[in-house]
């Protein structure tokens, strides 16, 4: 009963009756909100005519690059023209526009800059899918949850990784997780060049021994790395990085060695034309000459020579576990198994 009285009281009010008679949508409903993405706005003067907007546009008739004609004062400019009868207001053109400031403005999305998310760490940890045995020890040991399993593969989320190295400690397979130094790339390059060149020179000194190697025999020697480490420390005084770099080189490097035995040469000149870089030359007085600096070690001369002048060997390396100053590189050299043509 009381509610009925309340209703009567409510309906009897003048303001209610006025509202009821003149019911209309409020003006703000008809207004477009500020986030509304309207047709792109073109600012001709910034356009570089790259055509990215036309390539990104999903509607076939929406955007066209036009060029205004030259006048006596200045050259014509190229700029995009939006056909509002075709444009779907997706804003892709503004997003791909590479100029700064943007030639095309459409909505707000393209003005958002992604935040810088890379943590300031020296190392980046990468999973080697080929070596990984999916034991998930890294997943269990990761403290920040950066390791996850996607499609039966272990994946490291670089934005979460704090480079603590816990996963490598727990990984049972050597090399399945790789810690790559992402800093000091130039210095790393220098160290790599230094190590490779030094090893090559060292092997070259033993050429006579290598030449007289019996087939199926293996040539071995140890190379102490203390000198190398001294030089590397001059490049960058970071023992961890030096050890890491040298270890990676020696694990991966497969050096090709070409030996040259002038005594066996009969000056048949078969190899001269075969050499792809012209490292082998013939002179009437001097006979056949090989320029070792030009040589690519492609082994074509070895495969061509019927007299065994050129020898082709493969060297492999292994760094011992000892500390940097006492460390030794085991060098193993054996004749290549490549067949000789002819």
């Amino acid at each position: 009963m009381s509610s009925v009285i309340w209703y009567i009281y409510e309906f009897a009010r003048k303001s209610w009756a006025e509202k009821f008679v003149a019911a209309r949508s409020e003006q703000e409903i008809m207004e477009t909100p500020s986030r509304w993405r309207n047709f792109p706005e073109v600012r001709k003067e910034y356009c570089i005519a790259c055509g990215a907007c036309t390539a990104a546009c999903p509607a076939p008739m929406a955007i066209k690059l036009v060029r205004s004609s030259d006048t006596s004062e200045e050259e014509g400019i190229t700029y995009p023209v939006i056909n509002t009868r075709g444009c779907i207001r997706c804003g892709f053109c503004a997003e791909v526009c590479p100029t700064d400031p943007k030639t095309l403005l459409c909505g707000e999305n393209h003005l958002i800059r992604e935040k810088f998310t890379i943590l300031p760490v020296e190392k980046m940890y990468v999973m080697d899918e080929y070596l990984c045995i999916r034991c998930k020890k890294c997943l269990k040991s990761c403290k920040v949850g950066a390791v996850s399993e996607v499609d039966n593969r272990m994946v490291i989320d670089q934005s979460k990784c704090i480079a603590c190295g816990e996963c490598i400690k727990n990984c049972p397979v050597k090399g399945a997780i790789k810690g790559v130094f992402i800093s000091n790339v130039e210095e790393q390059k220098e160290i790599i060049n230094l190590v490779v060149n030094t090893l090559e020179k060292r092997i070259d000194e033993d050429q006579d021994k290598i030449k007289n190697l019996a087939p199926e025999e293996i040539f071995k020697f140890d190379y102490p790395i203390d000198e190398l480490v001294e030089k590397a420390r001059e490049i960058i005084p970071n023992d961890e990085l030096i050890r890491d770099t040298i270890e990676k080189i020696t694990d991966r490097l497969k050096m090709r060695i070409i030996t040259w035995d002038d005594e066996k040469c009969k000056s048949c000149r078969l190899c001269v034309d075969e050499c792809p870089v012209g490292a082998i030359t013939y002179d009437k007085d001097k006979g056949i000459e090989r320029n070792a600096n030009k040589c690519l070690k492609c082994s074509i001369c070895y495969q061509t020579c019927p007299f065994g002048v050129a020898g082709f060997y493969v060297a492999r390396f292994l760094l011992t576990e000892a500390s940097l100053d006492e460390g030794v590189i085991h060098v193993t050299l054996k004749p290549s198994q490549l067949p000789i043509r002819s």
Partner: protein
Amino acid sequence: MLDALKDVIRKSSIHVCLINTGGCNGCDIEVVALLSPRYDLEQYGIYVHNNPREADVILVAGAVTEQWREKLQRIYAKVPEPKIVVAIGNCPLSGDVFNQEGSSVYAPVSDYIPVDAEVSGCPPRPSEILAAILSIGPNAIAARGRQKL
């Protein structure tokens, strides 16, 4: 006297028929939004019927597919005079994203029936559709009604 009365009624009561000639349905949804309490189309005296025989305004959406070409003209013929055609969205204007090379859409719609108003956008805002209907609808219908056809 009778004409004046007809004018008043035509201005305050517009019947709309929505035709989708093969679009993505997005524009239809915007029209449905117009019917909702938020925009409340009927406060302007506009009623949506999907019956061309009692319509004053035809809203055409869609890029005119093969099957729609003749049917569209038949529907247009069924609408009593005076009639207004409003093309909603980009599809009836240019074919929009459907008008790719090798596709079988027959946009623009003005190749088949005369179009009085165009609302571009993909889809246009409900308020834009409403503004287009209101800007052309009442007066044009009234004006056409006075013509001896």
